[in-house]
Every structure is written in C-alpha cells, then in structure tokens.
C-alpha cells in the first residue's frame, strides 16, 4: 500500500498489461465472431477463459514481484533479522498478490462487460470454485518460482516470467486439451487449471456435471500448494546455512 501511495505510477504496471490483453482478446473474439457465420460466441468461450487465466497468472507473478522487490532494494536482511517469521513473510507476499490480482480481476471483468458485452458470471456460481482452484494453484506457482529465485539467486527471476505462457499450452485455456498429442495430455491432467478450463467448456456446452472435475482440480491444487510451501521452507533453511539470506542483501544483486 505504501509503495503504491508513494509511487502511484505503479498502478499502471499492475493494471496496464491486463487492460491491454483484455482489449486485444475482446477485439480478436469479436472479429472471429463475424467470420464464416459462426454458430457460437467466441467471446463467451474464449474471453472468459482468458480472464480466468490472467487472474491466475497475475497471482503467481505478483507473489514473485513482491519477493523480488525486497531483493532489488537489498531489504531482505531487514525483514529476516526482524521478529517476522518466514511463514508470516510468505503470507504477506500472498496477501499483497491477492489484493492486486483481485483488483485486476475486477477491472478485467468490467472492461469485458462494458466494451464487449461479456458477462463473467454467465456460468453462475460455478465461477467461485473455478476462481478458488486457480487462486490456490496461482499461489502455489508463485511460491514455487519464489523458492527457485530464493535458491538460485536473483538472476533466476527470468524463469518466473514465461511460466504462465508455457503452462497455457498444457491446461487448455485456448483449446480443449484433446487437441494436444496424447503424451502431452498426461501432463495436462496433472495440472489443476486443466480441470477448470475443461469444466468451463462443459458448462458452456450445456453439461453441468462438473463436480468430479472440480474436486480433482481442488485436490490437486491443494497438493501443489503443500508441496511448494514445504519446498520454500526447505530452501529458506538451506539459505540460512549457506549464508545466501544475508548475501542477497549485500553481494549478489
């Protein structure tokens, strides 16, 4: 909050890319809808999935960026030499990210609704478990990439940026995963977002029998969260031994 208060321009970095993406995809889906007498709404099928995907990607990215801020400003040691525990620190990263990503979601939904007539709540209350699964998995991915940067050093931050793009290939944001070769589909079914986007398509085609799908997605996302959380703690403990924690503040930038 203080960072945004003293640097309002930061709000642009939080929302600008989301606004651009929604504009782009809104216009693309609108254009596709005019081609070849399409019998269904591209906007409904694609734009909703894009909003959900960007929400998840933002959660992951915002956790990573909040963490990197502390490294970039050499402030790391100030936090870890205070009474703040590593769990509280991690929770702080998650809460900051959730606040920014939720604000981003509201803006995306408003733009999609006002400019492209897309109703984000078209699938009713099902949107809630979808958001929950993506939220949990986004947090897990954010913690994972943060742990990787924590382990390998600040130069490893580049690994975090393409993760959402790479994962979008597998989880069926833009197409059903049946489009993927069989061996890649195996990877898809390990990733919780796959169950969300599969369910979105099922509901839009009139099949509301998505309970099991969502249950799998939820269980998998919780498993990912637990694993990445313990991975982060393990890296933290290792860094306490190697001295990386203090070096992040003094040498390795």
């Amino acid at each position, binding site marked *: 909050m*203080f*960072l945004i*208060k*003293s*640097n309002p321009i930061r709000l642009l970095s939080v929302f600008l890319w989301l606004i651009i993406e929604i504009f782009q995809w809104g216009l693309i889906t609108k254009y596709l809808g005019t081609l070849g007498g399409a019998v269904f709404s591209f906007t409904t099928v694609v734009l909703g999935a894009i909003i959900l995907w960007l929400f998840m990607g933002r959660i992951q990215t915002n956790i990573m960026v909040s963490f990197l*801020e*502390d490294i970039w*400003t*050499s*402030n790391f*040691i*100030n*936090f*870890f*030499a*205070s*009474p*703040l*525990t590593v769990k509280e620190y991690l929770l702080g990263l998650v809460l900051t990210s959730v606040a920014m990503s939720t604000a981003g979601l509201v803006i995306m939904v408003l733009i999609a609704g006002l400019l492209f007539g897309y109703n984000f709540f078209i699938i009713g209350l099902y949107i809630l478990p979808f958001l929950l699964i993506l939220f949990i998995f986004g947090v897990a991915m954010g913690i994972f990439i943060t742990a990787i940067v924590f382990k390998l050093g600040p130069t490893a931050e580049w690994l975090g940026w393409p993760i959402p793009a790479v994962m979008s290939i597998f989880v069926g944001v833009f197409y059903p995963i049946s489009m993927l070769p069989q061996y890649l589909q195996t990877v898809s079914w390990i990733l919780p977002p796959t169950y969300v986007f599969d369910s979105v398509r099922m509901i839009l085609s009139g099949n509301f029998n998505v309970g099991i799908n969502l249950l799998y997605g939820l269980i998998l996302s919780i498993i990912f969260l637990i694993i990445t959380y313990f991975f982060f703690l393990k890296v933290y*403990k290792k860094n*306490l*031994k*190697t*001295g990386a*924690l*203090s070096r992040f*503040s*003094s040498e390795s930038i």
Partner: protein
Amino acid sequence: MVLVEVKNLIKQYSGFTAVNNLSFDIQEGEIVGLLGPNGAGKTTTINMVLGVLEPTSGQINIFGKDLKHHKTEILEQANFAAVYAHLPANLRVEQNLKVFGHLYGVKNLKTRIKELLKEFDLEKFKNHKTGSLSSGELSRVNLAKAIINNPKLILLDEPTASLDPSVSKHIRDIIKTYVAKNKAAVLWTSHNMREIEEVCNRVMFLSHGKIILQGNPKTLAKEYGKKDLDELFITVAREPLTLNNEI
C-alpha cells in the same frame, strides 16, 4: 548482567572456516567493538547473532535464551543497522519507519517515529523517498530504524561508514546515551579506530575467524607495544602471529 553469550561458535563453508571457535559475551550497558580486517569474520559473526546465518556448531544465547529456539522473541528486543542493508528506496522515510515499527510491534508508533525523526534530525526528510537521500541521511534513517523498538541489543555493522565527522559524532552520542539510558548493549564493527576508541568499552580483534586479542580500547594498543589502535589494527591485519611474541 550478561545479554549475549556466544560459546564455541564455528561457521564453515565447504572446507573454509569463516568463524573458528569464537566465544565471547556482552554485558548490559556495554558497547563492544568487533574489529578486524576484511574477511576476518565480523559480518559472519553479526549475521549469526542476528539469526540470518546458521552456525555450523556452537551456541548463541541472548537475554538468557537460546537463539535457535527463541528467535522471534529475541529479535523483538534486538535490532540492527548495516552499511549493506538498505531500507526500501521507494518508500518515504516516515513510511519506512512505520513499516518496521509495525514489524517490531512498537506501541505508540506515531509518537516514537516523531521522537526518532527529531533525534536523528530527519524531520525535514520525513516525506522524502528514502532512495533520494544522501548516504549520510540514509545512515541516519537506518539508525533510527535500528532503535525504533527500543532494543536491548543493537548490532551495528559499520554504521557510520559514510557519515561526515560531525554527523558521526552526533550518531555516536545518540548511541552512547541510548545504551546508558536503556541499559542496552551494542556489538559494533567499524574500521574507524578513533571512533571505536571513543565509543566502545571493550574491543575484540578478529583474525581468520578467531579472537586474537581483546581489551579496553584506550589501553590495548599500549599493552601490545603499539602507538595506537590504528597501528594495532594494521599488525592484526598483516602480521597477526607477531602479536603473540609481543605480549
């Protein structure tokens, strides 16, 4: 009363021993200088006492509690400032003090921040971004942060490294008054021997991770046949082994 008790502290990094069987204590009301050439193990020692570096072996007790098992409780009553640990540059001075005041659970934070801004002559900078301050101003903000929670133990790693003599003196006076008033203790590293002589009750010289000599900074140089602490420091840095012959 002993506030810090370090016993047989060892830190090894894949075969290299940075701190070698270090033992010392710090009493209430004491300002102890930790001196030595670059790479002697001063920052490694401070980081272990701060709990951001785990010793290979040995024990650190602070306020009578084992640091390993009571880290959060201990750190509530400790604080530090180091030349390499910066506060978030994008936050304003007052915001930084607020953030750390909250982290340390400071009561009546508004009043405390007001006191500190006055004490460190930072009132006119309170709405300035921390990153826009000069190095001297920045050091004062770091020190204000270091005593925001009225700590019983303060670890200062070259706190006056970039300050002019007048501001340095002001800072030393603040720390000395603070320690006397609050019965606190300070572990202070510096390469400025005059400063150490003025502010410390006791100094410990480190070489290759070991304390090779310690004592009163006002008399120690003479005890080893040296003109002053500067000369003693140079001998510790270049020919530590010769000191044993001069005792």
